[in-house]
């Protein structure tokens, strides 16, 4: 499936108004790519016979996997709501999550994925978390999964604090994803199943 989570390395959607330069470039231009999303792309299977090896250095379109669309949607949504941004500090993850903006963006077929997809997003301060879902996937489940993953990322990686160490701990996000979203499959987990998986993920993080 194409469940990609733009939450690697801390899900880089830094506030466009704060970061001039590459990250603020419009979608499709070289350098507008967000690293987190792309590394997930590698896990997508290439079935066509004789498919070109991935990564010919061609500036393919849509390389940022809809990240630009989500960024635009998130900032417009915030502008429209007119609410002052909530500055939460480490320890206030639950509050930050509660105040988070969220929404869903339609990505048309071919732009950037072959079929039409829905990109669900959550924006916590200047971090964006995105889950791209295929047409047959359960969006209600996806939304819950996204919130859960966001909460984990915020808590275990202390994303509300300053510091670049988050980028250096992206393997923890990978490990978490490999359990809660194995091979990008959404799971129907009640609290007992979720608890069991989260315990394993916590054990990983403790090492």
């Amino acid at each position: 499936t194409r469940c990609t989570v733009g939450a690697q390395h801390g899900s880089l959607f830094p506030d466009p108004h704060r970061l001039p330069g590459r990250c603020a470039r419009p979608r499709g231009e070289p350098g507008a790519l967000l690293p987190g999303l792309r590394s997930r792309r590698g896990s997508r299977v290439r079935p066509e016979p004789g498919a070109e090896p991935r990564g010919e250095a061609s500036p393919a379109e849509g390389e940022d996997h809809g990240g630009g669309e989500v960024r635009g949607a998130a900032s417009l949504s915030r502008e429209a709501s007119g609410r002052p941004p909530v500055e939460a500090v480490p320890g206030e993850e639950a509050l930050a999550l509660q105040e988070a903006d969220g929404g869903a963006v339609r990505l048309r077929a071919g732009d950037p994925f072959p079929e039409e997809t829905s990109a669900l997003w959550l924006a916590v301060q200047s971090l964006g978390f995105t889950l791209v879902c295929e047409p047959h996937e359960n969006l209600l489940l996806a939304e819950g999964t996204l919130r859960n993953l966001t909460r984990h990322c915020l808590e275990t990686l202390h994303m509300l604090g300053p510091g670049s160490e988050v980028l250096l701990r992206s393997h923890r996000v990978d490990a978490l994803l490999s359990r809660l979203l194995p091979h990008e499959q959404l799971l129907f987990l009640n609290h007992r199943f979720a608890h069991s998986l989260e315990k394993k993920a916590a054990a990983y993080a403790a090492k």
Partner: protein
Amino acid sequence: MYSHGSESLINQAREIQEPELQRFHSRLVKLLQGKELGHEAVDSLQRLHIILSATKYTRTLPPELQGSLQSLLASPAEQFQVLSSAVLRETLPLSGQEGNYTQENFIQLNNHAAALVLSQAGSRADLSSLCAQLLRSLESRQSDGPAASLTHTLPILNTVLTHSPDCLTEDHVTLMSKKLVDWLRYASITQGGGAPSGGFFTGTRSRQPVPIAELDGTVSGDFFTVLCVGQSFTEDQWMNVYSFSMLRHWLITYRSVSNGNTTADTDDRSEVDGSVVSMVSATSSSSRLLPPKERLREKAFQYCQRLIEQSDRKAHKKTDTDLQKACLVEAVCILDSVCGEDAALVFRAFPCIKALFGRLSSDLSFARVLLPIAQFYLNHGEMAAVDCESVWNLVFGRFPAELFDHQFLAHEFLRFIRLNLESLQLRVPQYSRSFPNLLKFLAWNSPAVVDDFVDLLPSLVTAGTAVELLHTLLDLPCLSATLVLQVRSTCLPISEPGGRGLLSLDAFRSQSFRGLFLFLLRGEAGSGDTIDRLSTLHEMLTETADWPRVVQCAQTVPVLLHIFFNTVIAIADQKLLAHLVQVMLERSSLLLNIPKYNKEIHRVFSRHLLLLCKLHPSLVVDQSHELLEFAGATANVYSKEEIYTHVVWVLGEYLSGSCDSRCSVMLITSCFETLEAVLFEITSSAPPPGADCPVPRVVTSLMSALAKLASRSHDLIPRVSLFLSKLRTVTRGGPVAWCSDEEDLVAIVTRGEELWSLLKAPGVAQSVLTPPQPVTTPQWHGDTNVAMPLQLRALTNLTHSQ
């Protein structure tokens, strides 16, 4: 907060130079050769990952490093599995190594290595061989094998299904159908593991199996599902969860529709007649006789029914309550799908779905569950002869009116409409009348949903409601402001102490203006095109013109208007088109005053006025009264020059006998006089205080229009010529009050001279300014049989050939 540190890391990663990178690589190789790999190795690998993923050009690693990384994949420490897999996924596999893992060892790979292999599968053959291995491992399962590799089989298969479902052979599909049935329907109903942590039932290590429980704590009385809990779980209970998670995808991928005698199924294992199969599936007790695919369908049906029943229980935790909702959605979708495959199931499913609808319809927090239910009704309601009216009243009535600000619902709602457009137009008569409600989603959150409306709007354009729709679109920003006021009105106290005291909010709450707002908030079309006191409404909403939502909404209106006009042209008759022209003229001065909004709307109107008149030239004669009224108002020259120019142009172009035989000399003369008066006025004195000079294009359009009209009624020629020569004289005398730019003045005068000299030969003027119809078609100029110059050239070539 998110900072400089991370941004600079990424920038460094992007800009790292080749020599430094190579040194980093060799350092890393040495590090990985060491016996004990510690924090430094983890950190370096992480940095390598950042470097590789920071740009979109895939790099290759030196073979040594690649080799070390590949051996790291099998490391006992999971961190290194994760990191090496992540790094290798960002690089190209070494040449000659593709297909390295399609040997028999795939199933022994840990999860992260398996993910890597999947991502590098280069061809369908590779995938097929991976699948074959996976399924073989499922078949020959030892009961005491390691659990980890088994649970991820299903997610891996799910990935294959997305990309290449043909990789599974018929036998594979049959095998999987059987296994899925086992896991879904026959998982253990006792809690797993004898984990000696005491549990919460008893403290003794009794071997007595403890039954699983429902979410509300009661002991479970039926088979295991994702909504069952226990202290710990057995392997087949885990497989139950994974199976259900991919069930819908599986069923959709391997659909086979049995209708009567034919089966559109390539895997036609059932030798029984299609209709006999249907009869059998109507009674669940004989399901053992069903072929594997049909049996899976039956078990899926039962599982979904059980989930629906379980969702009625009161869960203790909020996450479980959310899961119940998600399960309801999934269950209804799966039921919808299997009923599509086997129509006989509809009669079994409907009572359940209907009861569910009855249970949930009054609670809007279940709106997202009610959408799949509506889909079910849409797909199968007709067959079951069920009355769907209450469903559509809820969906098109209450949802948009009360939940317009729920982003996720809006997304799913509009997707539902898009995917079922034809069906809805056919079966739901109130659909096309519900646009005032549907547009609330757009008015509230334009950027997120405008894309959907670009696709949906054409279906909402009908001849009966077109005029009302046009008014509604023009007043979308007002609707936006009203919705904001409605939301604020419920949140804010009646009087804000020391607050800004919004004028618009007071107006919204006051009795005397209530009616205006209620009209905007109406749910259905048909009660009137628009309101009389529109200007009052606009006045009251003046302060909202800079609210972000209103501004965002205003930006989407021009696009939608274009779509509206393009659609309506195809279905409108003359009368409707005439009405639309009137609306355009009327509304051009009746818009909410948002910066740039008026200009944009005028531009859209101008374009479409032109297109309409081009298609139906007789419209101009038809609507001459209204057009002249507009053209005769000098104020319009200054405030609406774009539209004014176009109105004048269409009058000049199409007010002629050749376009419509009803065009009399009197009409031409009266039009002439109206335009002449305006032209005199604007070129004889300075513009009124507060206004800029008239745009030069207006002046030249007026002159051209007068010339055209004069060429049709030669008595008028002297009047035009007189004016034009006077103009030339006046401008020779120096700058004029009504034109500030010298170049513009020169252009105007030049045009005047051209027209004047053209009008000296009335016959020529007539054929130039009022050409007969055929001359305007390209064929006239391109077809040798028709165009004189080409005919002559052809003859010349023939007669002078050597």
